[in-house]
């Protein structure tokens, strides 16, 4: 499915991602964890084309995406949501999703018809229902609550019907209760959509609870991979990661 081979990127001598190789299986739900500065976001940025890798391949169903532009990569089927909700502040929820579907169907340049296009409606409706945004469809994005903005961000990625969905800390900046609601949503999404989901998460409880597969990044390298149980009992991970992270964060 999504097959990363020898991916490397350095910034002025600092190796942010160094020779990372991992194959995300089809339909898997994988958590990427690691201490601050481990290169998690850089990893996502490389896969989605926000950064150009120095070396390595990013194969999606055998097609190498390394070095392509974000729009091209999105079209190949990699959707992404951001750590800080990245939305279109002046559009309503419904407009956002209708326009996004339009863009995905390559109708974003249509001049002679009026927005919205009828053929974009069903998918937008479906995603709104799926993420529970339907009753807020006419709210302007900027007016949404923090949690809803994060949901809208995910909806934006999802509405493009991706094969792989990358979620960068979907629960960042949320209260405990809201966090669990969000993570339930992610889980439900994965169940219903049958797509490959990769997410970055800080909260170990969440990770161990819902992710069948975990990748641990540290200083740009893969430290360990495995199931929650394997990771929990991995001495290297405990030393390098849990020690520092748990020591620092309450």
């Amino acid at each position, binding site marked *: 499915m999504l097959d990363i081979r020898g991916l490397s990127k350095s910034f002025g001598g600092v190796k942010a991602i160094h020779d990372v190789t991992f194959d995300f299986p089809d339909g898997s739900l994988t958590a990427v964890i690691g201490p601050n500065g481990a290169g998690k976001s850089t990893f996502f940025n490389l896969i*989605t084309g*926000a950064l150009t890798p120095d070396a390595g391949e990013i194969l999606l169903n055998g097609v190498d995406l390394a070095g392509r*532009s*974000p*729009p091209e990569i*999105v*079209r190949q089927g990699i959707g*992404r949501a*951001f750590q800080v909700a*990245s*939305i*279109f*502040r*002046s*559009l309503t929820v*419904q*407009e*956002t999703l*209708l*326009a*996004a579907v*339009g*863009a*995905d169907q390559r*109708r*974003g*340049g*249509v*001049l*002679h*018809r*009026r*927005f*919205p*296009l*009828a053929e974009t*409606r069903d998918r*937008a*409706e479906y995603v709104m229902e799926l993420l529970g945004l339907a*009753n*807020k*469809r*006419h*709210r302007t994005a900027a*007016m949404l609550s923090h949690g809803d903005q994060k949901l809208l961000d995910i909806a*934006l*990625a999802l509405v*493009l019907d991706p094969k792989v969905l990358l979620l960068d800390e979907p629960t960042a900046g949320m209260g405990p209760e809201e966090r669990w609601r969000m993570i339930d949503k992610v889980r439900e999404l994965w169940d219903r959509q049958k797509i490959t989901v990769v997410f970055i998460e800080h909260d170990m409880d969440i990770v161990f609870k819902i992710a069948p597969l975990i990748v641990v990044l540290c200083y740009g390298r893969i430290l360990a991979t495995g199931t929650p149980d394997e990771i929990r009992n991995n001495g290297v991970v405990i030393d390098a990661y849990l020690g520092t992270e748990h020591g620092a964060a309450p």
Partner: protein
Amino acid sequence: MTELQAARAADSLSAPRLEAGSKRLRYLDLLVALAAFAVLALLPLVSDSKALLDFVIRCSAYGLFATSLNLLVGYTGMISFGHGMFFGLGAYGYGLIMQRIGVPIPLAFLATLAITAVVATIIGAICVRLKEIYFAFVTLAFQMLIHSTILSWSSFTGGDQGLRGGIPRPPFLGIDLSNHVHLYLASCVLLVLGLLAMRQIAASPFGYTLRMIRDNPMRASFIGIDVWRAKLTVFVLAALFASTGGMVMALFVSGAYPEFAYWTISGEGIFINMLGGVATFLGPMVGTVLLLILNDTVTRFTEYHGIVLGVVILFFAIGLRKGLMDFVVEWYTQRRDRASGQG
């Protein structure tokens, strides 16, 4: 908005009806345009004031220019300080074709648009890569470059004295643009058609692509939008309308002058937008009327119009903090919300 209102709004505009609604809006636009044109067309019958007709012709020229600038500034978030170069290009292109070759007016008109499209594509391809203030500066630099060229290349452009000796206006299809009323009607037609076309652009799926780019270009590229291409497209489209405005101006003064391609024209365009408002489609048009009235009245009474104009600008920038139409629309929605909140 309260939860309740949102729910009610959702009720009244569910998805299938939204579609029908947008079609209705399209007819409404057409209706408004027809009505506006009818009113404008009746004006010469009601009033024999030539100055009023002149005023409307100038409004057409500046209105087309300012509204097209708003496609960039308001809808796409591209602050161009050099949009005036296309106004100048329109005036010079049309004037030169008519003076040197002397083809029928519609042909010169189309040829000028074609030239504008080519030039705008080349300049746009270089400019739209840059963001924010850098985009503003590089467009300004191009504007100054074009202005310098017009001044230097005097054998072709007439230099600082502009295209002299009048631009011929041979009649075509029974339309004689040297007749004042014909010229007036022609510029009204151009204005209404231009506004209608720009309205369509703003309300099309492409218009929403532009809004997305304005709000969050990074995110737009992550949902598969080729931001560069969309920006270039709107840059060229806006240039075409600005060029049309320039042609109306050239017809009005029967000449073209380097001032038409100077940065102050771009500055005036931005000023008009801020005056009228950028969040409403007709904001720039309102701004045009306001600025021209302001200009014409103030210069009538004082030669210190800089102070007067400056104070008016301060009133808008510091007092209202937005253009007139934006202010009115906001005030109206607030009032409506308050009323519906009580009721």
